[in-house]
């Protein structure tokens, strides 16, 4: 029994079901991120937790209390909206204390809470301004301040950073992370940005088409994705998915694939249970950073394989150089150290970190468990 329990929750609009049997338990102090492409049902799920949408089936409970049908204001939650939803006619101070006022908190207490939160978020000097007189980042902070003064059980964020420019988004991301570390509040956070999900969360629920595809820590989701959707959605550039066959060689299972020159390449698996797949087709999943130059390869890895392959395009990107090439008939991206010299059109010797490689069943697209 968690702090916030979403059990067996479904949502339908008329006859179309947009969320299917969602089960997520959130512990107190956790930072859960719901991530997925547009239209996958993240906002719908968040709004159901908030009480802004009805629950079609299943239960949502907070602190053991079932919340189905409970009015949003009685759930002891606070929400930060994508557009911030600041009341345009009220000052920053009034915006932040409106909720307390509506809940009948006396003025002296409201002022005390306001002073504390304003100091925390460095909003002290802005309290008498109207939202229209604030920058995007300041509005964002006010929206968070409005949520904080209420001291709710659960904070709900719906894409709070998506209206900010790239630099500010990164800054605010860090600020939210710091705030969570300091206050240890329980947060459910919606985003379609996988980097936000990986950096902020203690756990991630990756969603697609109304299904939770995987629920796990950032490391679990990144290193052992449940299926091809999760593998390619999380991480940038996306994980390479390469068709291969499994064959025995020197008593160990190997992935067999063809490189751009038409030669056969064999890469030894670290997972012993790939023996079961000998003679069958699989999809090999390799993150770009597991496909690198020999000097850049992970020194701790027990299983680095060599792979020689002609390079199609090299793109220096400052901190890294990205190389595009063909492998197993697919476009594949490798991530090399910045000053590696590669010449497009010629062959290059790559190092493949097979410890990080994953394999997928081509039929079900699920990861083959190690």
């Amino acid at each position: 029994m968690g702090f916030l329990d979403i059990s067996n929750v479904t949502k339908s609009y008329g006859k179309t079901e947009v969320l299917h049997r969602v089960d997520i338990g959130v512990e107190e102090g956790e930072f859960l991120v719901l991530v997925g492409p547009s239209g996958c049902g993240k906002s719908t799920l968040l709004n159901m937790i908030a009480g802004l949408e009805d629950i079609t089936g299943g239960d949502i409970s907070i602190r053991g209390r079932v919340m189905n049908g409970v009015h949003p204001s009685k759930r002891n939650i606070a929400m930060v909206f994508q557009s911030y939803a600041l009341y345009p006619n009220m000052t920053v101070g009034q915006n932040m204390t409106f909720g307390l006022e509506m809940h009948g908190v006396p003025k002296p207490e409201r002022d005390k809470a306001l002073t504390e939160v304003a100091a925390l978020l460095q909003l002290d000097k802005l309290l008498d301004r109207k939202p229209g007189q604030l920058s995007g980042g300041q509005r964002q902070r006010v929206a968070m301040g409005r949520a904080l003064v209420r001291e709710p059980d659960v904070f709900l964020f719906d894409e709070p950073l998506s209206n900010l420019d790239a630099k500010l988004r990164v800054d605010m991301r860090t600020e939210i992370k710091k705030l969570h570390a300091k206050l240890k509040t329980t947060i459910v956070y919606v985003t379609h940005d996988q980097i936000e999900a990986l950096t902020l969360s203690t756990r991630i629920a990756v969603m697609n088409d109304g299904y939770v595809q995987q629920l796990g820590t950032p490391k679990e989701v990144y290193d052992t994705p449940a299926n091809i959707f999760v593998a390619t959605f999380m991480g940038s550039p996306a994980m390479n998915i390469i068709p291969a066959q499994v064959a025995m060689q020197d008593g160990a299972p190997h992935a067999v694939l063809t490189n751009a020159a038409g030669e056969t390449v064999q890469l030894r698996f670290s997972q012993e249970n790939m023996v079961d797949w000998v003679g069958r087709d699989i999809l090999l999943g390799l993150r770009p950073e597991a496909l690198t130059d020999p000097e850049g390869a992970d020194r701790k890895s027990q299983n680095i394989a060599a792979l020689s392959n002609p390079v199609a395009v090299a793109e220096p990107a400052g901190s890294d150089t990205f190389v595009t090439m063909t492998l197993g008939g697919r476009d594949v991206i490798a991530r090399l150290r910045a000053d590696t010299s590669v010449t497009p059109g010629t062959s290059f010797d790559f190092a493949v970190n097979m410890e990080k490689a994953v394999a997928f069943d081509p039929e079900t697209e699920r990861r083959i468990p190690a």
Partner: protein
Amino acid sequence: MSGATQSTAVSTGRITRTLIYLVLLLFALFYLLPFFVMVVNSLKPLDEITGGNMMSLPQTWTIQPWLQAWSSAQIGVEPTGLRPYFLNSLLMVVPAVAISTGLGAINGYVLTKWRFRGDNIIFGLLLFSCFIPFQIVLIPMATILGKLGIAGSIPGLVLVHVVYGVGFTTLYYRNYYAAFPTELVRAAMIDGAGFFRIFWRILLPVSGPITVVSVIWQFTNVWNDFLFGASFGGQSQPMTVALNNLVSSSTGVKEYNVHFAGAILAALPTLLVYIVAGRYFVRGLMAGSVKG
């Protein structure tokens, strides 16, 4: 080369602009001329009008026609002047405008932020009321007013105008609130504000422009209405009906200067409303189309 093109562009710009101003000036004159005639002639003794040029300024200036129109002219059979009817109109227009605007605002709020099954049908029916010709409802309306016991009274007139106005005011507020972010209402719900509190504290404070539109529209229509006033006014006839009685009274000489003064008196309140609130009117009509 480019300098030459530029100066041509500037001079064509200047010519177009002069033309536009000329046309605008012409239109302004066209609309102001009748008003000029009315003002000028309301300040002349009667013999100057009957004896000479309508367009010329008064030789002897007098406010006598105004005083007469206001307090002693023959309206129907009573020599009361327009004063009591002016009061009637005021007593009718203020509650009628306030109530219809208030109802329109609440309707617009419900139709956009508290959607329910069939809300669009209700809105459609309300809109339909904007297109029903006045004449059709005269007899049923008379029956209803009679049954309610408010026929021939100011409350009766107020009711009629509220019923007729609420379609328009609902349309205004609905379209205005449709552009108002629903997230704000949701935020207020989470903050613990109820139905009326959200309306009062969140929506109304930003409804200034559309309220001006609604008030001007309703004020002009209700004040200028003649048909309902004549049909249901009874003992409490509004200004428009009284003006008609003043102008078309058949006994004695036609006192054109008094008529002009009376007509201006009747138009003055709407004129005032436009002058005071006119620029907000345009701003309100534009709001929603360009989100600020």
